[in-house]
């Protein structure tokens, strides 16, 4: 049975279904509804968990580490500035190999302060050693949180995961969502028994020791191997999820790509708009395909190389930007396709700070991409920006 849920509610239900033991939190727009709902679940006895309202996001993720090291299943939620404040500790969560799962309401970063959607917050945490998933819908948000626990807790992985849901477009928007039955989720995730060493007075161990140059690199190499293993474990878990719940997931999802010359690559909620736009354009005979990135870390290199083989032009839709370079997804796709003559890869920076991504946006992207089929176009294209206002130095 489907229920109308906002994205934040999807995330909260997923944490409840995963039977988390501890939920450390600090409120931040647009993800605040997640801790509010967990607080309610705990207060009315629906969820047997310890709820810790901390003094900052930095403390929230620190408490998550403490709880996880004591063998608890731990979830939390944050966004934007909160995630940026966690930055230092995110490296430590992954370096200590703790399977914490975090829901993110993907939101722009200051300055100027802005509460609306883009992917800058999670993209800026790309190198912290967390697995990264991006949801297109609220259903995906719920499912990905559940799967993230299974993937993160796998003995071959033991790395934390973040699942991004676009601010407001998903976090605050109702969509029909199938909430799986508790018994089926229990069967899927199993009772949580930490398969890693924990703080145990009967079996004392030292965690977070000082790693000299003699040992530090081996710890990092172990993380590299874990990320590689995660790539396979993600496939396994996605398959098992499909068998149990009937919803198919893959690291990249290809649609209309078979005969396509042009391929759009999207991440997050704008995928739906891109899909409808492409359907419309295909009726006009335009051979456009779509690739949705669900997993950003580990980056699905092999899958993309296979999918982009024989394509002429790729339009990367980046809802983020790395100043001094361009879009981050563009950079990853470019590196992935290095050494191949085709396809030509063009970057589009769109929808920063919650600017709507509409059919018009994709029309402009298509126009430049089609030009790219024939001749040369700009490498990085900022779409729907009032360049005149910037040139008049109104924005400095």
């Amino acid at each position: 049975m489907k229920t109308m849920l906002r994205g934040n509610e999807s995330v909260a239900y997923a944490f409840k279904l995963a039977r988390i033991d501890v939920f450390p939190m600090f409120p931040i727009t647009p993800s605040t509804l997640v801790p509010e709902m967990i607080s309610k679940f705990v207060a009315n006895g629906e969820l047997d968990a310890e709820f810790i309202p901390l003094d900052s996001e930095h403390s929230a993720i620190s408490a998550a580490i403490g709880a996880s090291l004591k063998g608890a299943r731990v979830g939390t939620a944050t966004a934007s500035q909160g995630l940026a404040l966690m930055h230092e500790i995110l490296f430590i969560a992954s370096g200590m190999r703790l399977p914490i799962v975090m829901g993110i309401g993907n939101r722009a970063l200051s300055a100027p302060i802005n509460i609306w959607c883009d992917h800058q917050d999670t993209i800026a945490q790309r190198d912290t050693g967390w697995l990264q998933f991006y949801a297109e819908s609220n259903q995906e948000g719920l499912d990905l949180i559940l799967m993230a626990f299974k993937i993160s807790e796998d003995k071959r992985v033991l790395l934390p995961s973040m699942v991004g849901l676009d601010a407001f477009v998903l976090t605050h928007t109702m969509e029909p969502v199938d909430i799986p039955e508790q018994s089926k989720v229990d069967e899927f995730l199993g009772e949580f028994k930490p398969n890693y060493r924990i703080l145990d007075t009967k079996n004392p161990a030292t965690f977070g020791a000082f790693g000299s140059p003699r040992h530090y690199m081996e710890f990092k190499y172990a993380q590299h191997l874990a990320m590689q293993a995660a790539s396979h474990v993600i496939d396994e878990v996605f398959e098992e999820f499909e068998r149990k719940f009937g919803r198919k997931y893959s690291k990249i999802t290809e649609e209309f790509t078979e005969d396509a010359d042009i391929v759009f690559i999207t991440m997050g909620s704008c995928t739906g708009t891109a899909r409808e736009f492409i359907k419309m354009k295909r009726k006009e005979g335009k051979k456009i395909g779509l690739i949705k990135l669900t997993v950003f870390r580990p980056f699905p290199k092999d899958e993309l190389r296979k999918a982009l083989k024989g394509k002429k032009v790729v339009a990367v839709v980046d809802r983020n930007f790395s100043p001094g370079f361009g879009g981050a997804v563009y950079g990853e796709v470019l590196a992935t396709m290095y050494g191949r003559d085709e396809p030509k890869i063009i970057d589009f920076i769109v929808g920063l700070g919650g600017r709507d991504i509409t059919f018009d946006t994709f029309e402009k992207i298509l126009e430049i991409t089609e030009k790219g089929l024939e001749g040369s176009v700009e490498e990085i294209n900022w779409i729907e920006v009032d360049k005149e206002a910037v040139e008049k130095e109104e924005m400095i």
Partner: protein
Amino acid sequence: MKNDWLFAPGHGLCAGCAIPIIVKHILAISGENTIVVNATGCLEVATTEYPRTAWRVPWVHVAFENAAAVASGIEAAMKKKGEKANIICFGGDGGTADIGIQALSGMVERGHNVLYVMYDNEAYMNTGIQRSGATPYGAWTTTSEVGKANPIGNARPKKPVAEIMVAHRASYVATVNVAFIRDFKKKVEKALKTEGPRFIHAISTCPTGWRSDPSKSIEIIKLATETGLFPLWESENGEEIKITYKPKFLPVEEYLKAQGRFRHLLKNPEYIEKIKEDIKQWWRRHGVEI
């Protein structure tokens, strides 16, 4: 001493450093059923160089500013599992009074069942003697340099962290000095028997940063208390503090002249007068006329 092996010898802390004495005595009292959370600092760096460790109880270090938050998470997980153990945080004055004070304040305000111990050597000693909020008035550090334009060194008074914890209504707060070991042990025992958030402020010598003779460490911190500069007291649930040791009120110069970090003050009696005045004021506020 029972359980005195829980903090093992062979660590890399300096000769004359009081930290290992503080830690060893606390663990001897808390026993095996203890989990230690350590903020980044001398204690953490010098005791856990992988693959060796000086800790024979479960021990965790996450970062500089968050020991109290990590402990909050551990305590919550234990509550969920129905387990009981002493959770003890060790943090230096920098990790506690400065960068960690927010996490500490939160932990105490939320009422977590944790004992937080601040070993206070009055500067960032691990990074090499930089001033902290707990550096006393008149101390030289590498970031409160003494010169023609600044003859005082650190011009600000020491942040009263333990009193700030009393204001939080922590269930137990005490100042301790290993040179007064009976008082020290009594307070640690009391702290471990008390439920809720507890805070112990332990003065700790640093011969490297204090520019003092390592063989005189205990004598020097003894003087910190005997001159009235580091009073020994305790407080329960935010109640008025109770003095647990009445010092001899020796001249503060005795303490200052034993340490190179105060050498410049000896040429400036007006600064020493100010220190004496501050000592007088503190004791007057607590009903003792010197």
